[in-house]
């Protein structure tokens, strides 16, 4: 008696579940969906860009002698170099441009400073925040910060003008200066994501 009731109950539940599945199938007609909308998925991509190029010319900075009784020239500067840039950022993290000496040594008693100047009107986008002149050494220091999506153009006068200032080191003894003609230093620029 009990076994037959269990069998009856099992059959009832089975047919109930089957009926539920049939009811669901009737509400979704895959053959003829009455749909007045259509969707398209699009992948929209923007390639990140971080490119730099300095013009090839060699910059010659020489502190020359003056009249007897005077020090050598206290500073010389050159603003002929240009640094071209193309940057595309994809987050709110801006880039920074740093510079460092990667080859050669700045002669003792002197200092090589660098400052980036505002680029010309061909520059497209925000060129960032220009730092004050920084002394160049083996450790990279930022010369431009807050760089967003931009490009400089590629004409000879485009890009950040780079002003190199070669001067006596005010914190060093004048007596420590040694004549050393032709010391060549290489300055490397790096464009990185802001830290």
């Amino acid at each position, binding site marked *: 008696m009990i076994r037959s009731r269990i069998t009856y109950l099992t059959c009832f539940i089975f047919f109930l579940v089957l009926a539920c599945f049939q009811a669901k199938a009737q509400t979704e007609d895959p053959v003829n969906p009455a749909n007045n909308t*259509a969707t398209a*998925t699009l*992948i929209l991509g923007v*390639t990140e860009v971080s490119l730099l190029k300095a013009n090839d010319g060699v910059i010659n900075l020489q502190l020359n002698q003056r009249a007897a009784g005077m020090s050598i020239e206290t500073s010389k500067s050159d603003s002929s170099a240009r640094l071209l840039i193309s940057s*595309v950022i994809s987050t*709110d993290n801006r880039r920074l441009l740093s510079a460092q000496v990667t080859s050669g040594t700045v002669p003792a008693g002197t200092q090589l400073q660098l400052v980036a100047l505002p680029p010309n009107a061909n520059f497209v986008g925000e060129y960032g925040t220009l730092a004050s002149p920084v002394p160049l050494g083996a450790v990279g220091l930022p010369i431009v910060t807050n760089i967003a*999506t931009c*490009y*400089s153009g590629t004409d000879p006068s485009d890009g950040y003008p780079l002003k190199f200032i070669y001067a006596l080191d005010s914190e060093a003894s004048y007596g420590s200066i040694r004549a050393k003609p032709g010391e060549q230093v290489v300055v490397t620029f790096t464009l990185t994501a802001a830290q």
Partner: protein
Amino acid sequence: MIIFLMPFAAIGQDSRVATQDVSLQVAGSALLAISGPAVNLQLSGAAEAGDAIAKSVENSATRLRISSLVNADEKRAISAKISEALVGTQLYVELQEPNTNFVYPDNKGTLKGQQLLDSEKEITLVEGIGTCWSGKEEGDGYIINYTYKAIPNAPVLKSATITVTYTISLVPSDPS
């Protein structure tokens, strides 16, 4: 003489005229579907320092199929909306002339030209659509032309995977 009078005999009696009410109905229909490959729009980067990135890129590989059946003077319109706001870029879309398989081309509606898509509101792409259908062979349907552009001087350009939803809807007739 016996006469049987049968009044019920008049029921169902044939005459020279017969009438029958027949209800004729045409179900309104408004269906859209996208066909074609996945759409990937990439603003490529600069090759050399100082170069600009690509300012825009286009894609016309997909089609928007349609079946529209309207009653009387009803007209329909197709609108589109994107699923999220874009950063530093814009997505334009233009529905262009379908091919010759389009049936009742006079009813295909007025193509509104290139439109900037928005995530906040529906943008109308075609209006004045009557009864027509596009066919469903490869290449049938309105040509969907996407143009993906960088906003000039935008500080940040972000990539995204978005959904464009096209909707066909009935346009209320002008009461005048």
